[in-house]
């Protein structure tokens, strides 16, 4: 295991591409995504439906195979790892999905569900196993009676806690959380977010990629944010900087569209016209140009801008350095 102070990233995606051939043409779901997570970081990956954020999360663990680029977990290149080589990686990185109802086997008791990864990955004795499972349930705030219950007997929030307990069973260093609170009520979402925050506080090496469409949740939980649009990351930086001073027009529009939990209506909302374009036939140049309020003919529709670095954040826009309003 590497030194926690070392600078080698826990997750490194380098020019990741996931292209799906379909009847209608090649769908470029993920198209050249580079992202690196330092040990201990919580990074939010946001974007709208179809932006490719979930595909990035799944590909990072090789649940979907990339068609290009490199994936490394804690320095270990897993881009072409075989299923056998991937098995030990599963104890390092785990995934939690949006809908806990469909990610828990309805025919297994909660005890069996949480024990399964331990049975696969460790040679624990039966008595140790029971103790470990009770400890995990306790850790996620569920009473020991739940061991013998089935998923349908639990509420959505409780099921999500079971999914987290299962992920934590192998003591991973990295979690990929794909919209883990989107199916939950706000009062329950708050509990799960608090729990994740605590978990990170007590384990300094724990690293999370938090995939979400909810910017407020990302603001609360994450240190860094990456914004995706049509298979590409268009802006990346520390949450404070990006929320206070978004550089990419898409990030600006996204932030201004969030309905604020306050009496005053949003002012200066930037209205985007139209929908996300098709990833089969993305617009030329910068894929955001047909919806962009800053569009400049001849420039934006010709070339996709390179990264423009401003302070600790960076954005892919010709005007990233321009007016910051």
């Amino acid at each position, binding site marked *: 295991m590497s030194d926690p102070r070392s600078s080698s990233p826990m997750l490194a995606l380098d020019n990741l591409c996931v292209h799906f051939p379909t009847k209608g043409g090649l769908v470029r779901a993920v198209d050249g995504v580079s992202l690196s997570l330092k040990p201990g970081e919580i990074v939010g990956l946001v974007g*709208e*439906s179809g932006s490719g954020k979930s595909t990035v999360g799944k590909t990072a663990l090789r649940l979907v195979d990339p068609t290009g680029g490199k994936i490394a977990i804690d320095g270990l290149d897993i881009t072409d790892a075989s299923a056998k080589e991937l098995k030990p990686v599963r104890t390092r990185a785990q995934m939690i999905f949006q809908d806990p109802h469909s990610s828990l086997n309805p025919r297994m008791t909660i005890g069996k569900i949480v024990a399964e990864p331990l049975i696969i990955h460790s040679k624990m004795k039966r008595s140790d196993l029971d103790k470990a499972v009770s400890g995990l349930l306790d850790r996620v705030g569920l009473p020991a009676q739940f061991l013998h219950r089935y998923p349908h007997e639990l*509420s*959505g929030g409780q099921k999500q806690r079971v999914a987290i307990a299962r992920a934590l069973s192998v003591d991973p260093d990295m979690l990929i959380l794909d919209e883990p609170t989107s199916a939950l*009520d*706000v*009062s*329950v*979402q*708050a*509990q*799960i*977010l*608090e729990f994740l925050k605590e978990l990170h506080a007590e384990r300094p090496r724990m690293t999370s990629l938090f995939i979400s*469409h909810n*910017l*407020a*949740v990302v*603001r*609360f939980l994450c240190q860094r944010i990456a914004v995706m649009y049509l298979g590409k990351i268009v802006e990346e930086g520390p949450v*404070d900087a990006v*929320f206070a001073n978004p550089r990419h027009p898409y990030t600006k*529009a*996204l*932030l*201004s*569209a*969030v*309905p*604020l*939990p*306050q*009496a*005053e*209506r*949003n002012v200066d*909302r930037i*209205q*985007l016209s*139209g*929908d*996300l374009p098709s990833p089969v036939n993305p617009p030329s140049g910068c894929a955001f140009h047909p919806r962009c309020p800053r569009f400049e003919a001849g420039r934006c529709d010709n070339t996709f801008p390179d990264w423009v670095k401003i302070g600790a954040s960076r954005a892919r826009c010709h005007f990233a350095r321009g007016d910051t309003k």
Partner: protein
Amino acid sequence: MQPLLSIRDLALQFDTFDGSYKAIDHVSIDLNPGEALGLVGETGCGKSVLTRSAFGLVPTPPAKITSGSVTFEGREILGLSAKEQRAMRGRDVAMIFQDPMTFINPVFKIGTQLVDAIRAQRQGRVSKREARSIALAMLDKVQLPNPDRQFESYPHQLSGGMRQRVLIAMALTAEPKLLIADEPTTALDVTIQAQILDLIARLVEDMGISLIMISHDLGVVSQVCSRVAVMYAGQIVEDAPVEQVFNNPAHPYTKGLLAAVPHPFKVEDKLEGIDGNLPNLYEPPKGCRFAARCGHAQAACSVGPIRQVTIEKNHDVACVLYNNQEVHV
């Protein structure tokens, strides 16, 4: 002023093999003409059942309305025959829902469905050609791009936001007096959600339609509504102008909801969840239904039904903490 819709003491239960599930517990609420009311609450609080049952959209059985009355423009509508209810829906009251795909028929073209809806609402008194021009005008009003082309499209060819626009067009062609929007933007992305919320706010204002917007998201409601009613476990616990709900919430549940929602432009160290679960509504608690999860619970909470008190103009709350703060306005 006579309220457009007046629900008085409405109680509804679902009769199941496990007993009677008391989904709505003696709820009273009025909606004035032109008002935009937000009905807010978490899963299972009864916000959808309340509005749907008022217009005969909850099948009986299994549901049973055990008490109360619902009047629309002063006329009792609870006892209406199925035929009378049907005539009223679409003409006086229209609804839009969370998932437009479920409410648009996938095997017919958008245009055909709009024309059929328009002719049904007007009981066949318009020709197909007239209905077509009404439909196209309405699609233009909801800002559907290329209405002529979309008229010939099937629902699956449209994006979620476009489908919701079609559903809104369908709902508003008859110029109803009341629009009920049940989580109309929950399935949409934020940028599309912003477009649809603006559209709804503008249309109800331009057309003078009253609105009930059902949502679990206080932020969404504050974009469109001027008044908010918060529901918990089949009861309305607080009813106030939107500014009061955010700036001066009274009920501990409302406060809890607000504390649980992160704010995108504020740095917050801690979010407060609400511990515990909904009470068992087969045998609901005698007193306050929130008491078991409430930090301010006291003996008085479990004695009997909680009285709704007015603590300032247009601000009602059902909580024993405010019994001494009642004002008469």
